[in-house]
């Protein structure tokens, strides 16, 4: 596409310089009824729209509404949608090829992967039993930094990101004329993953607090004996600094103590190499993602109260795991070819969920759990000092007979605004309600707070949060017939923690609204 534009622009310049404006009028677009005719130089054609440089300035015209005549007219049948996806190799090496393949299959297209290097492939989609190429998708798998850099430099159309865009990248993008990357319309959650702290299977350590992990990776704790282990030096393994995973680790763990990674760390370019090295060394510790655990052992994340949260699919999907990291895609500010837009729509659809799961990542489809599977949360509530058993009974009365959805809502610090993943959850749930997927059901939005402050105030906050989500769902499900689904909200304050309240991350995951589904009575 870009080459096309360059060619068109070059042609335009050549025409203007060499032959004068009159000679540059290489296409004429006429409306179907013949009432309107406009001539100009074709600047581009994206399979849908003609972009013309006319005496009145540049114009874009819908190809379906006009007939094109003149030497410059493109052949709509010969149009090849071409776009570039660039960024994290965690996403680009397995997940993105799987998604492109599934998308092509769903479209009834054949797909050929042209491998240029380990980090760069082009996926050519063509019509079955025909040589006609419909799309070429270039996938550059480097790191998140490079993905944003490519987008801002105009070298890619979609970024695969392991982390949200940073403020400096937002500023750079605006300066470069590639738009505001902080806008919610520019980002969507592709899948979920979780950062996982790993040790060898032979290492007896079962859980770790983020603060302790930060001290180990910063080099403040250097011997296992300092954390009740054997007297042996800790071998720290980390990703190279430019990887999105390393940056995520820095943001989520090392930032807790505001220290950099120890210079003694063994650095790896690939997460696979990192976990393989850790798995073989009982004195090693490293980090990776839930999707790339290899043979290493993931640690539960805990606080001082002893509650540990394991990196498991349900916990990641529910954001109950504190190091859950959504895999994000950022899109160009310019309009992409229709097939590219279709692909972006596909990756947010249920059809993509299977490919996401099979690639080892966590999809965003709705799962359910019965009350009997909530043992750990109920145990936490019973063990929590000062909890009123009557509140636990009230909770049981509310949720008994129902199932908990694998979607929960978390809030940005100090606000009732949902975080990125929860915003996506809201949209998905609203869509399901709109298409009648919840007809005849009762959805109960159950609010919880952290344990900081007065219990009565926390009860009130949890009520407000459940009502806020309820309101947002009603707003988002604009076309839903809400008479066919019963929506209600209830709050339980600080009674049901899923993590210790002694840290900011623990409080954050305790501040939540969970959703229970029942048959409407």
């Amino acid at each position: 596409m870009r080459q096309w534009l360059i060619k068109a622009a070059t042609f335009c310049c050549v025409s203007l310089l060499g032959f004068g404006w009159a000679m540059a009028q290489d296409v004429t677009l006429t409306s179907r009824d013949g009432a309107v005719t406009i001539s100009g130089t074709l600047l581009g054609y994206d399979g849908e729209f003609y972009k013309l440089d006319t005496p009145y300035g540049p114009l874009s015209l819908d190809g379906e509404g006009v007939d094109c005549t003149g030497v410059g007219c493109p052949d709509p049948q010969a149009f090849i949608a071409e776009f570039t996806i660039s960024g994290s190799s965690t996403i680009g090496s397995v997940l993105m090829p799987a998604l492109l393949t599934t998308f092509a299959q769903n479209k009834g297209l054949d797909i050929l992967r042209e491998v240029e290097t380990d980090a760069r492939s082009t996926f050519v989609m063509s019509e079955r039993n025909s040589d006609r190429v419909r799309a070429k998708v270039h996938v550059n798998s480097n790191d998140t930094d490079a993905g944003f850099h490519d987008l801002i430099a105009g070298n890619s159309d979609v970024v695969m990101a392991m982390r949200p865009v940073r403020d400096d990248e937002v500023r750079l993008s605006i300066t470069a004329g590639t738009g505001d990357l902080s806008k919610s319309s520019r980002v969507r959650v592709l899948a979920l993953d979780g950062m996982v702290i790993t040790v060898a299977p032979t290492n007896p350590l079962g859980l770790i607090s983020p603060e302790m992990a930060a001290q180990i990776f910063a080099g403040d704790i250097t011997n296992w004996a300092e954390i009740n282990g054997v007297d042996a030096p800790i071998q720290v393994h980390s990703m190279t600094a430019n990887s999105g995973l390393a940056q995520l680790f820095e943001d989520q763990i090392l930032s807790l103590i505001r220290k950099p990674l120890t210079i003694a760390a063994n650095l790896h370019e690939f997460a696979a190499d990192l976990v393989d090295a850790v798995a073989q060394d009982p004195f090693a510790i490293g980090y990776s993602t839930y999707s790339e655990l290899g043979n290493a052992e993931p640690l539960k994340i805990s606080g001082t109260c002893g509650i540990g949260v394991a990196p498991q699919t349900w916990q990641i999907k529910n954001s109950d795991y504190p190091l859950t990291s959504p895999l994000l895609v950022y899109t160009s500010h310019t309009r992409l070819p229709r097939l590219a837009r279709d692909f972006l729509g596909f990756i947010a659809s249920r059809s993509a969920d299977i490919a996401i799961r099979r690639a080892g990542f966590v999809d965003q489809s709705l799962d359910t759990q019965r009350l009997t599977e909530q043992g750990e949360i109920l145990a936490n509530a019973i063990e929590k000092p000062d909890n009123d058993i009557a509140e636990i009974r009230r909770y049981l009365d509310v949720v008994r007979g129902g199932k908990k959805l694998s979607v929960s809502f978390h809030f940005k610090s100090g606000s009732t605004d949902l975080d990125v993943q929860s915003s996506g959850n809201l949209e998905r749930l609203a869509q399901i309600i709109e298409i009648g997927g919840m007809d005849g059901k009762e959805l109960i939005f159950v609010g919880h707070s952290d344990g900081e402050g007065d219990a009565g105030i926390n009860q009130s906050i949890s009520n407000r949060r459940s009502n806020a989500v309820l309101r947002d769902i009603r707003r988002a499900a604009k076309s839903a017939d809400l008479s066919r689904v019963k929506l209600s909200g209830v709050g339980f304050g600080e009674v049901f923690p899923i993590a210790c309240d002694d840290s900011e991350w623990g409080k954050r995951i305790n501040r939540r609204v969970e959703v229970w589904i029942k048959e409407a009575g």
Partner: protein
Amino acid sequence: MKTLLKFGLAGALIMLPSAAGPLIEITEPVLLAANDTTTDTEISKFSVDQNTTNVSRVSSSPALFLTPPSDTTSDFAAPANLQTAAMVVAPTIKHRTLIPMIMAAMPAEPAHGALPVAYTRPMSAQTPDVDSRQLLSDPNLSAFGLPCRQELTITVAPNDMMAIMFNAPCLNERSLTLAAGEMELSVTTDIFGNFATHLPQLTQETQVSIFDGANLLVSSNFTLDHTPVGEAYVLIWKDIAPMNLFVRSNDLVLRRDKGRLGLIENSRTPTGLTHFTAPEKFQSIRFSLVGTVDAENCGQVSKARLVHRGNVGIESTDLQFRMPDCDQIGKTLELRSVIPDMKMARN
């Protein structure tokens, strides 16, 4: 091995030039099938007419075939491209004995004693007792007087492999396409129109077909009595194979199970096809493609198909690689992200 030997013996017979010199070069069966002590017995099974001198010599002593004929006269007018063969067989072998002898070279025995599941499409009746000139002018017979039938034989082989044998006497030295489920590869028949190969059996039922260009020659459904299990990869190169499939794993179970890892270098599969089947229990297995840039592959585009058997069935991915340019000869190329790792399912 037995099949190879049979092919090889017959091939040696046919390809021997009339001059005495080169014959001495091919004097021992080791060229055909080393350490195979059952050669004669196996060949004799295919001797249709044991009383015929030449055929019985095949079964009793393969070395006899290496003796140059003393008489070069012949009433057997072979086509130009088969002149060498005619020169060998014509002096001492009458046409009545020719067909059984050639039959001895055909892969007709099911491998490993399993029952063959074969599809035969006879193109003409076997009529050995006719004049040799009639044989050669009959469009339904091959240059060796064999009926132009096409026979596909598939048998069970160990490790969930299938032994595929194809015989089409009138399609000698022909490049054909063998398709077995999602697997598709080019094969070439020998001078008798035979080829034999082993392919991994990815599903309980597999449709095996032979194509000549776009024309389907024969096709057969082959069914195992069990469902093959385990995650598996098959990598099939279409032309040159510039890279090899490598497997890495720290999985202790896998490292103990060297036999399974050994499958990747299976010499019985055709050149350009490698396959790997994971054991039932494993945590993580990594794959990479490694190749050295050389004068033959530099700057060349190679195509391959990756077939994967996973939890959801069989999937195939078409791949195309362009090797680095010739100024990088000697450089080793490793691609780690093309073939997804096998992982224990966690979700």
